[in-house]
């Protein structure tokens, strides 16, 4: 299974990953990080990640890692 790991402390909540995820598997978190930002989180409940890397390519913080377990 492919997993998107998002570093929630690095995330600044720009939502560019969320905008480009073709499967809609990234959503805004309700929990604030240490800097008071609502980061995004990976939500695999709506389907399977296809590993397209779009989220990681668009992340200005390089906060996204994708692994195939």
């Amino acid at each position, binding site marked *: 299974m492919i997993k998107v790991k998002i570093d929630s402390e690095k995330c*600044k909540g*720009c*939502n560019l990953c969320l905008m480009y995820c073709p499967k809609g598997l990234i959503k805004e978190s309700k929990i604030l990080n240490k800097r008071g930002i609502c980061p995004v989180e990976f939500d695999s409940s709506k389907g399977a990640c296809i590993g397209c*890397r779009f989220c990681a390519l*668009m992340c*200005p913080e*390089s906060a996204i*890692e*994708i692994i195939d377990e």
Partner: protein
Amino acid sequence: MKEIYKKSNILTDAITHYCPGCGHGIIHNLVCEVVEELGIMEKTIAIAPVGCAVLAYDYWKFDTTEAAHGRPLAVATGIKRARPELIVFTYQGDGDLAAIGTAETVHAANRGENVTVIFVNNGVYGMTGGQMAPTTLLSQKTATCINGRNAKRDGYPLKVSEMLAVLDGVCYIERTSVHNPGAVIKTKKAIKKAFQNQIEKKGFSMVEVISQCPTYWGLSPVEAVEKIEKDIIKKVPLGVIKDV
């Protein structure tokens, strides 16, 4: 477990000072990925600009020096001529490269200095508060043209890449952007080519990257990348401008 994507090892783990959605972060990682893939980390020297990217040396692991505002290409000329075996690149904003540094830029290009230029064009002076830059588009609003840039009052946007492309010393210029994943991949290819040209001693190479500045465009990051798609690249088309 297989790794599908991981940021470049040459990029440090520091949290950047950039605003949310800023294109600088994406471009920093691309430069690091290219340097890593070409195996030139130990002999690369970057020249950081004055502008939002002034602290770039905190974010990448190869050696970086700082130049006075607009003068990275003068410094790059010195380093490359003294140590031609090194790979030297400048990373500059549009205020740096195309306003205060126009003379240094034009003459380094005209001399055909064998260096690489990453020209980050966001159409405003980001660091100082979003004032109008030479590259600000007509009718674009900034802190110093609050009703939009007006050609009669402010002159026309400077077509830096087209202008440099006519110079004989220039071997490669491409305009790219980082507003969608496909554009990011193309930008990486262009940056790689610009470094490879230097390794092959072909001469002056520049990649102009159209980059979003959500903060001083007064837009959310998502709106800013949509603006690049729907508006900006219609006015400043992407593509190879010169390749000899």
